[in-house]
């Protein structure tokens, strides 16, 4: 089944481009460290998911590029074509002349309805090219105007037009010290709307990825390109083909569906965080070896202690002792920094799989009480190494990972809202104070649900 990617706004298009780049170069990579047959199988599965090979010499990405101003899209299209290994369909983009001005209301109430038909036509065309549509993957930031506002509108339209398809939104959270002054407003409005239409929200925070670039990748002058490449690597590690069932004979054909099934058991809990280890500069790869037990131990502790990367993990944090009674307010018994999960998915790529024991992830104390741990934890595997990493382990987690960042954003937005600053910029485009209040209420609800885990 194929995934149609919708790239929205400057951020969405820049990241989308890196994602396809990473996936394509991974597939072309002959260091799969596995049998030729395995490699071919992997390549075919990947191609089916992300590329369409009709009449052109190079694979054509299954993507729709949307932006309200032309500069980024034309750059993205030409960079892809220049690579010579893949490209975008020349007709699959939509842009206008004037951007959204960082104004969510402009993106949602003005550009959305105005361009709905044209955009949905493009999406429909792309969807029809798929033999079987596996769902939609949208990439956007929530700080700006187009990715956030228009993105929220398009997500709604996708949900209306394709009610039974899976819909995963990849959302970039801006630096907390600000890239855009009204980013907290835009974020609150975006998240509350996406929560209604999407199946799940997969989140990357700029602050976190920046730290990874600085401390793990040793990049001195970090550019957005570096950040986007790390994000692309992490996304690739989730979406490249893997075996979902134990002893499965072929690569899973329904990646989005599998993801939703394993991670989103309840519609109130849709926030997914992503961790991937190891991460290191490319030229260090040849000199490093890892063991699966080591990687798994680190990943588990990163989950429990809510660590953002594999350095600086707090090893003191431990799950509460089981055996104590489980009263309804049992969350009080948990140590303060402990990260409770609803569901977790571990994806392992690389050689020597036989020695792997994932029992530690099935420990019931990691999870909230109303799910059976057997249902809460899943793992996917493949022998085929990913993106030159001999071993790579990813964790997609529906847990309290994002609780604190979300709370911060809502807090700051509320603070600004209390002074009514900038509200006139939104009411200009028919987003009223009431709409803000609705969004705040919706997100406080989400915060409350995750807190009470």
């Amino acid at each position, binding site marked *: 089944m194929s995934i149609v990617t919708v790239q929205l706004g400057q951020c969405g298009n820049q990241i989308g481009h890196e994602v396809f780049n990473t996936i394509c170069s991974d597939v072309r990579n002959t260091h799969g460290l596995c049998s030729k047959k395995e490699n071919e199988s992997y390549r075919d599965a990947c191609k089916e998911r992300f590329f369409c090979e009709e009449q052109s010499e190079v694979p054509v990405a299954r993507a729709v590029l949307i932006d309200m101003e032309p500069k980024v899209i034309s750059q993205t299209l030409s960079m892809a074509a220049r690579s010579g290994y893949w490209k975008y369909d020349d007709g699959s983009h939509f842009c206008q*002349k004037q951007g959204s001005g960082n104004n969510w209301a402009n993106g949602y109430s003005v550009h959305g309805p105005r361009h709905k038909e044209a955009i949905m036509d493009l999406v429909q065309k792309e969807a029809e090219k798929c033999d079987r549509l596996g769902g939609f993957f949208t990439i956007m930031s929530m700080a700006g105007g187009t990715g956030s506002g228009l993105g929220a509108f398009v997500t709604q339209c996708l949900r209306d037009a394709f009610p039974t398809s899976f819909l995963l939104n990849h959302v970039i959270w801006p630096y907390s010290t600000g890239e855009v002054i009204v980013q907290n407003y835009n974020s609150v409005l975006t998240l509350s709307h996406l929560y209604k239409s999407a199946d799940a929200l997969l989140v990357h925070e700029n602050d976190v990825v920046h730290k990874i670039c*600085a401390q793990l990748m040793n990049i001195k002058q970090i550019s957005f390109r570096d950040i986007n490449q790390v994000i692309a690597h992490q996304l690739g590690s989730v979406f490249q083909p893997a075996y979902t069932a134990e002893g499965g004979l072929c690569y899973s054909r329904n990646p989005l569906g599998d993801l939703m099934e394993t991670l989103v058991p309840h519609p109130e809990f849709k926030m997914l965080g992503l961790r991937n280890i190891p991460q290191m500069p490319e030229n260090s790869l040849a000199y490093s070896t890892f063991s699966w037990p080591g990687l798994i131990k680190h990943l588990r502790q990163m989950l429990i202690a809510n660590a953002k990367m594999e350095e600086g993990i707090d090893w003191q944090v431990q799950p509460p002792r089981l055996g104590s009674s489980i009263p309804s307010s049992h969350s009080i018994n948990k140590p303060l920094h402990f990260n409770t999960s609803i569901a977790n998915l571990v994806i392992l790529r690389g050689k020597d799989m036989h020695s792997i024991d994932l029992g530690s992830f099935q420990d019931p104390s990691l999870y909230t009480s109303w799910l059976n741990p057997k249902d809460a934890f899943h793992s996917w595997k493949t022998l085929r190494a990913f993106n030159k990493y001999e071993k790579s382990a990813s964790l997609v987690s529906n847990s309290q990972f994002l609780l604190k960042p979300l709370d911060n954003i809502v807090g700051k937005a509320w603070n600004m809202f209390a*002074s009514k600053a900038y509200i006139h910029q939104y009411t200009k485009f028919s987003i009223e104070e009431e709409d803000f209040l609705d969004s705040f209420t919706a997100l406080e609800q989400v915060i409350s649900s995750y807190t009470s885990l």
Partner: protein
Amino acid sequence: MTQSVVVQVGQCGNQVGCRFWDLALREHADVNKEGIYDEALSSFFRNVDTRSGGDGPDIYKGKICSLKARALLIDMEEGVVNEILQGPLRDVFDSKQLITDVSGSGNNWAVGHKLYGSQYQENIVEKLRKAAEHCDCLQCFFIIHSMGGGTGSGLGTFVLKLLEDEFPEVYRFVTSVYPSGEDDVITSPYNSVLAMKELNEHADCVLPIENESLFDIVNKIHQMANSGKLGSTVKRNSLVTSSAGSAKTAQEKPFDAMNNILANLLLNLTSSARFEGSLNMDLNEISMNLVPFPRLHYLVSSLTPLYTLADVNVPSRRLDQMFSDAFSRDHQLIQADPKHSIYLACALLVRGNVQVSDLRRNIERLKPSLHFVSWNQEGWKTGLCSVPPVGHSHSLLALANNTCVKPTFIELKDRFMKLYKKKAHLHHYLHVDGMEQSCFSEAISSLSDLIEEYNELDATKGGPRTDPSRLKIAV
């Protein structure tokens, strides 16, 4: 890609405007080596086929034929505009883009606004429409004028009002040169305050500039360039005040250096809209992020570096210095000290080879020394444009919505009141048809209200921060 139209009004407006077009051509010539009319050029210039004499049709692609500025030149006396039309830039302006008269406005806002306003209204509207029609997607009008005189101040603000009526969707950015205390025009306080009311009500963003600051900056550069200190040879072309390499070959006039600074300001402001970068900042984003309340739309600007040294220094130290300078008192284009007042919002637009990590590092470094209003503690808007200005490897434009503009307005109000109490020179104004005493009282009250709003914000400084309590959800 969007287009902008520049409306230059009065002597000051036209002289600054002239420098702007000169430098814009220089900047594009530096970037656009193949002579192809591209999107970046189209934001300020039209490409016209003039071979058949006069104004041919617009050419949207291909080689550059003849570039025409998207501008409207308005002056009620002919001297300045005539000089422009006889100078090296004569071909850049379309003869139909001019509105001139002979006698000038006599430093009288009422003459500029009421008399000439009504007289030329139709003409102005027609020419504006024409300019707008030539644009595929008109995003912004830039008005350049001074506040102290008659034409720039009076007619300039009249045009502002017209723009709001005729083109409500298009942003109106105004660069206003405020008179200094020792201004030789006695009635400049009247003119300025009357103009302020219009700016309060009809502009989207105002960039106030004071001649004193420009003068200080010019002096500083002059000292630096001529100091002969070891290792301090300034790179040619890199002065923010220089027109080296531009069309102007004649003797540089005294105001030229100062006007060049303003021209560079406008170029940097629009750079991210014209050229590519990893984090674009369009003009509508500036208005969105920097104007939290409709009337508080006065932005203090600063440009750094003022010059680039010729020898190769440690790059990142120079970079960090550039950021520090942007917040220092002597780099602001009005007499103000933003560090000791409250920031409502701040925008940093970086050009050249600067990455997001450099930006973040400097924001972290400078944040503790700046006071931000309680509801916008992290109020930063950032933009990265990859094309640096001519002669520099990187540059920074800082725009701040900061209460430090208040002293400028208070001074203005004081000077106004000094004259008004004695009713000095009032009869010159009241003579003009359509002008009444109420115009004065409304104007001063508008200014007082504005000052009051800034006062309220200043009062919050240093007070205890009590965040409003969050919504409670029933579990």
